[in-house]
């Protein structure tokens, strides 16, 4: 299934850091969120300097790196995953750039495609610097998702619109990732600015509960992206030394709540 097609219904898009806290547990957790209804999964490939992440995801990344996660292990992981939903690789540009013998993003994209990745989100790669990666994605038929921030405007917005594929990641508020209780009213305004884009609009940053998801979708989003709220569950399980299945169960349940929330929002959505 193509990425865009996954948003036919209001989509739930979870993020998890691959290898957090271990390869095996991580495999199980990704399956759990898919079982809970995920329509797309963003799989974080841990980078040592995750400058765009809040402390929750920073810690997840540190756990994964401590557990020995590398790009190659990541691709094995993706290949081994037994899920049918589209998979997006979320990482930082240096890992994309360094991979393989030749300089540039092409070897990484080729390998990702082979492993089963459908697209990329690279938070430190603005549209201005994205030419080479866009080209490589085109070569191997992968999507390249961009993040639109509340402050993205004018020319920059136009450039992104030209380059984006799969879906657009709408940053609901300023700041880096991290769960918040309040859903920002930036959301509506942010969505309005890209009302006429051709790709689905998935909103992220700070979504925690089914209610949040519902409100976001009813504000016009085509999907919700949820990271920190899920990573928190992994972290708690890890700290509490809980059984993998217990944590997986909790993740699945939260995923289900979020999926339902998103679907509920659909009825009320008024696309302007």
């Amino acid at each position, binding site marked *: 299934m193509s990425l865009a097609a996954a948003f036919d219904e209001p989509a739930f898009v979870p993020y998890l850091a691959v290898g957090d806290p271990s390869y095996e547990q991580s495999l199980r957790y990704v399956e759990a969120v898919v079982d809970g209804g995920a329509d797309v999964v963003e799989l974080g490939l841990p980078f040592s*300097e995750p400058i765009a992440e809040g402390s929750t995801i920073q*810690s997840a990344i540190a756990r994964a790196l401590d557990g020995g996660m590398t790009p190659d292990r990541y691709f094995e992981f993706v290949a081994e995953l037994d899920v049918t939903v589209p998979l997006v690789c979320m990482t930082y540009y*240096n890992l994309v750039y360094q991979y393989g013998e030749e300089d540039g993003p092409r070897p990484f994209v080729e390998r990702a495609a082979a492993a089963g990745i459908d697209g990329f989100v690279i938070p430190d790669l603005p549209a201005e610097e994205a030419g080479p990666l866009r080209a490589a994605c085109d070569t191997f038929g992968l999507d390249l998702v961009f993040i639109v921030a509340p402050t993205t405007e004018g020319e920059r917005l136009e450039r992104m619109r030209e380059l984006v594929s799969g879906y657009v990641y709408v940053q609901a508020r300023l700041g*880096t990732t991290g769960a918040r209780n309040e859903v920002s009213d930036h959301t509506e305004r942010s969505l309005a600015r890209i009302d006429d884009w051709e790709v689905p609009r998935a909103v992220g940053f700070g979504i925690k509960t089914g209610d949040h998801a519902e409100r976001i979708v009813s504000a016009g989003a085509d999907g919700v992206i949820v990271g920190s709220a899920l990573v928190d569950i992994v972290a708690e399980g890890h700290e509490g030394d809980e059984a993998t299945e217990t944590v997986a169960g909790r993740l699945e349940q939260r995923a289900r709540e979020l999926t339902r929330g998103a679907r509920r929002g659909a009825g009320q959505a008024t696309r302007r």
Partner: protein
Amino acid sequence: MSTDGQFDGYGGQYVPEALMPAIEELADAYERYVLANEDGFRDEFRQRLVDFGGRPTPLARADQLSARYDTEVYLKREDLLHGGAHKLNNALGQVLLAKYMGKKRIIAETGAGQHGTATAMAASHLDMPCEIYMGETDIARQRPNVFRMRTNGATVTPVTTGRGTLKEAISETMRDWAGTVENTHYVIGSIVGPHPFPSMVREFQSVISEEAREQIQAEAGRLPDAVLACAGGGSNTMGTFQQFRDDPVDLYAVEAGGSSLSVDEAAGVAPNSATLSTGDEGVLHGARTKVLQDGDGQILESHSVSAGLDYAGVGPELAAMVDRDRVDAVNVDDDAALAAFHRLAREEGVIPALETAHAFGYLEQHHDELGEMVVVNVSGRGDKDLETVIEATRKRDIDVGPTMELFREVGGAGGGR
């Protein structure tokens, strides 16, 4: 030189989308205020460097070193700048620019505390609220610098993630900025980060070479054969080189060779900070540049006896100048830097920062390849490094170092604090 932030393919703006408008706004402000002197920014900046910073700093012949090396050695004395290092040139420039831009708040990250103290001083002077992010490990190690920032009225926010050092502090500051760009300016401390930082910081620091070039001609009647400066991120280096770029003058960027140039990939550790000499191209903290990294692209932990050089990246412009052979990237190890610290203090009555000592370590080792006249930038003073040097000297057998008996006699290793 370019104003688009590209240096032969190095540079650029690899930052989260949320920050793009801020750095575009900053690039615009840089061009208007800094380059085009709109509203007299440049004049006010230069005047404040004089009144608050104590510029110009002297350039003077080092008599004992000149005799020792049979080379005319001149010292450019950035150690005399307010705060004790070249760092203030940049911090003052950026805080003032933030004021011109109408920002209401200053943030910065700091590792060893040099950039943090410079920023806190500048913010206090210009009456701007200031928050400095610092890893909790660094806070515990750099107590005096933390206290300096606090007395200057800055908030020092401990960063508790990870190992609690510079890299975590950088992430935390980025995160703050991503949420507060509208009213906040992030003062980056070296010629690193996304455009316009590398160009802007170099511009603020180029006052060093502007003065030095005039001074050496007035005092020695000619240009030097070589200019030496230590390089961490490279702001001191680029500031010292800038006005000599078009001259027939050899430029040496002296990096920290640490304890060894070889890398322990398994542990993710480079026991040095010699990014120009041993790193390779990558993307770090907003720019494409040379980086200390493993084969996968994970950033290595760098190491140096001098905290201010201890960074796994380097300014993109400097990387480009090295590739073009305009700048020689060289390095000296911890031991040579320590010996040079003691040598400069003993021979010339100037106690250099450990960062600075690297440049003098290179001078010691290669003085006969540098021509007849050399300018070395004394990027900072060493008061901040005394404890480190006492410990490090005791562990080694450095013949130029003072004996440590006095410290053993009186109060033992911990001293009588």
